[in-house]
């Protein structure tokens, strides 16, 4: 228990630092802004109670908000991601259900499952985030394009990180 808390704290710090120091500075043509910190919400244990998940999502979002000076924007999007996560897990559960004490990792449930899982949550999170950022529905198509391109990059980076984690 203590061990896993320490491990998640480490993952949390690494992801936050990656996001603030590296990914917040990425800029391709105004369309691609990867937000990989959402990976932390993906990796939390399956049987974690939803209300804890919601508070963790809120905390994660607020920390990113404080460092990027966008109060509440990341927090709202991340809470939404934390809220839909149990439903998505239920929706795409493997045939024999989830084993107790197991984290939703690529190593255990396979590449295709993880891609679907990460993809759904990342797209939901990014949609909320980018529409909250512009806060209007004019230029709808362009915002949608930003959502899709950024999601693509975020998912790619999350898969890369997951492969690195798997290698350990």
């Amino acid at each position, binding site marked *: 228990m203590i061990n896993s808390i320490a491990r998640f704290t480490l993952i949390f710090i690494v992801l936050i630092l990656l996001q603030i120091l590296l990914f917040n500075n990425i800029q391709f043509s*105004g369309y691609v802004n990867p937000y990989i910190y959402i990976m932390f919400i993906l990796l939390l244990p399956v049987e974690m109670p939803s209300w804890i998940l919601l508070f963790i999502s809120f905390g994660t979002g607020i920390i990113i908000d*404080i460092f990027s000076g966008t*109060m*509440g924007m990341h927090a709202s999007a991340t809470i939404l991601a934390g*809220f839909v996560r149990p439903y998505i897990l239920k929706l795409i559960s493997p045939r024999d259900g989830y084993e107790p004490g197991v984290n939703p990792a690529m190593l255990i449930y396979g590449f295709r499952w993880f891609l679907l899982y990460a993809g759904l949550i990342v797209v939901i999170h990014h949609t909320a985030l980018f529409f909250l950022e512009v806060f209007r529905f004019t230029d709808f198509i*362009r915002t949608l394009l930003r959502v899709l391109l950024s999601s693509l990059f975020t998912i790619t980076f999350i898969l890369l990180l997951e492969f690195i984690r798997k290698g350990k």
Partner: protein
Amino acid sequence: MRNLLNFLAKYNNLLIFIILEGFAVFLLASGNNYHNTRFIKGIRGLTRGIEERMSNMRAYFNLRDVNQSLVAENTALKNTIERLARQEEILFFSVDDTVNNQQYIFSDAKVTDNTVNRQKNFFILNRGTRQGLAKDMAVVTGSSVAGIIVGCSDNFSIAMSLLNIDFRLSARIRSNGYFGSLSWNGRDISRAVLSEIPQHVTFGIGDTIETTGYSAVFPEGIIIGTISGFEKTGGDFFKIDVSLLTDFRKLSYVKVIGNLKKAEQLELEKLIQ
């Protein structure tokens, strides 16, 4: 009562979600008023350490470019001195009270935090009201437009970058003086759009776009960029693509320009409204 408790137990997740989401949206709505500098003062205290270190590091990597632009500016200034010194030899001129005639006051500042990857970009300067900065002063880098100060605390200021979809600037084509409104389209950090130029005006690709000085914020004749393309829009106007001179990713040392006669100018403009 029991029913209510059952209801709460059944839907507690939804309830927590709604409460937290509501709180986050409240933060979003109230905290993102960038003009509210008191909020920024509080938050900046927490993150200033890291940001300053990051910005110091970036400043180091940019030294070569900064040096080059300083050399260029030095040369230009030396040329001006040379010209003025020559004038003195051959012309008689009366000495005016220079303080009274001074319209613009210049001050230097360093960018401590800057974003380019949002739709509404802002940057932070390490000077504030104590160093004489105030709201609505112009920010230029080298000799091109960077932004406008929208709020000041004691020692820091926040400026709206030209790369902000809310930014509007009165700009004109240097070669013929026709002016229009310049704004960023939110797509490319090296491009902006100049609109409201009538279709009978002739200009060429590569013509310089500069500020007009009508707004009392920017002095006249500060370069914004060059024309890189244009298209006709409905209503007999051109939509001109402007390639920006400023590289916003490398913003580090900037000049802040205050207009000493702005109050006077605005007072006068009020008469005709």
